[in-house]
């Protein structure tokens, strides 16, 4: 008998600051965290904006002696994991730590370390490359850093499916608990990839918004004037456990995770299948996994990057799966405000989805002035919407045709 799985803790490190409540307040208020890039000189770049974490507060969460050996993406992950643990009230030492695991998604791993050490190698030679180069740049380092930091001896896994990474990481953690392979999972994603190489790489693909003049209005998912996504950075982690365990320890249960589906387009390196077939399959798989019908869905948290291709294809997939219901189901998306957290985006949006269920309020898609007629859906545009929501579907897609869907349900004790 599969176990029911609930969310009992959330932790976020976002361009709005630390804590999931901070994220939630800003999303509801429709604020954008996008501004001019300050971490490096962008004068020769076409895109000069991002949603950076400008003053990362980590010292109150993780000792400096420890985090100095973590790449920035791992520092974000560790801080978000600590916040999720604090939020859940769980002290891992009180439980069987061999059954307490980590599942973490990221796209670019410790790329900051890789770039810095490449520079050292070129300028000063082999003998000056740091012995911490490899342990800090491994994409698995954030998961292992979290395991070590909190003494978690269960499975520590890293999932990399581009911008669907953290949704898949949560989906895999969900399955581990559901089938009894683990009792607690810290799961989510982290990304710290706002650097010259990544900016140039995405620019070269014409994937980024170049609306540098008005940074806060640059990311415009589903709008006719959209011209690309805006890079963001940060981490979001959820604490998952079986319903029975949450009840036994009288935990505050935020929501139940009821379904997960994944599928690949098998179509192109970067372009989504124009008919949205991969996302359609992932949506159908998640609905089947959750044993619910399209009519049971109360809100869709779309991937909504603000690229021409993604948004149109996403609307096609949603209309294929939901048919006429697509006219009625409210659709939101968070990236117009947070920027695109890449491998951490799905986890951030999972947090927003859970908060939607908790508060019966749907945050808006901002900068949506003239919806693209090709993306016709029931958007929550520009201002948040109060509405009772029982079930949220959260969609993520990534380059390489990755699609991943999570379904959260309101928990009623």
């Amino acid at each position, binding site marked *: 008998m599969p176990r029911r799985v609930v969310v009992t803790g959330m932790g976020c490190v976002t361009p709005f600051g630390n804590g999931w409540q901070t994220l939630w307040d800003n999303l509801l208020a429709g604020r954008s965290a996008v501004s001019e890039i300050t971490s490096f000189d962008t004068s020769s770049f076409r895109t000069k904006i991002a949603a950076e974490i400008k003053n990362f507060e980590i010292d109150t969460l993780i000792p400096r002696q420890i985090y*100095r050996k973590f790449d920035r993406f791992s520092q974000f992950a560790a801080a978000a994991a600590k916040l999720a643990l604090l939020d859940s009230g769980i002290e891992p030492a009180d439980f069987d730590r061999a059954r307490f695991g980590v599942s973490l998604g990221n796209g670019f791993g410790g790329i900051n370390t890789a770039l810095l050490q490449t520079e050292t190698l070129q300028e000063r030679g082999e003998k*000056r490359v740091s*012995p*911490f180069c490899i342990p800090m740049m491994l994409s698995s380092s954030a998961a292992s850093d979290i395991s070590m930091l909190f003494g978690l001896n269960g499975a520590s896994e890293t999932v990399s499916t581009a911008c669907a990474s953290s949704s898949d990481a949560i989906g895999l953690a969900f399955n581990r608990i559901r089938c009894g392979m683990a009792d607690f999972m810290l799961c989510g994603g982290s990304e710290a990839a706002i650097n010259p190489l990544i900016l140039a790489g995405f620019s070269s693909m014409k994937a980024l918004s170049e609306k540098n003049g008005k940074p806060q209005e640059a990311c415009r998912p589903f709008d006719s004037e959209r011209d690309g996504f805006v890079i963001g950075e940060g981490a979001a982690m959820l604490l998952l456990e079986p319903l029975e365990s949450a009840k036994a320890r009288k935990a505050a249960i935020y929501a139940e995770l009821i379904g997960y589906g994944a599928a690949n387009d098998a179509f192109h390196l970067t372009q989504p299948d124009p008919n949205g077939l991969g996302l359609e399959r992932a949506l159908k798989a998640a609905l089947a996994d959750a044993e619910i019908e399209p009519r049971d869905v109360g809100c869709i948290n779309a991937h909504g990057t603000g690229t021409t291709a993604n948004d149109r294809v996403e609307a096609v997939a949603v209309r294929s799966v939901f048919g006429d219901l697509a006219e009625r189901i409210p659709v939101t998306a968070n990236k117009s405000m947070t920027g695109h957290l890449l491998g951490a985006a799905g986890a951030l949006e999972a947090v927003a989805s859970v908060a939607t269920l908790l508060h019966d309020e749907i945050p808006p898609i901002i900068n949506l002035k003239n919806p693209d007629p090709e993306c016709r859906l029931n958007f929550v545009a520009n201002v948040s919407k109060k509405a009772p929501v029982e079930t949220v579907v959260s969609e993520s897609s990534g380059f390489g045709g990755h699609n991943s869907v999570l379904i959260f349900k309101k928990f009623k004790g």
Partner: protein
Amino acid sequence: MYFEKIVEIIANHLALDEEKVKQLTPESSMKEMKIDSLDIVEIIMKIEDEFEIEIPDDKLKEFQNLGDIAKYIQQIKES
């Protein structure tokens, strides 16, 4: 003077609090400072840069405490 500079490099590398730094003596061992096999490699790189010397890899094992490093540097610099 070698000792003081070594302390500065190590304190910086390990992100030690000021209190801890004050307690360091030539007898302070690598073990008690929790300097592991990766730390020592990076610390030695910084020492090599600072004093413009080269320390052969096989010497690393011989450094049990801060005094050992200071003595070794003095020996090279003054020979």
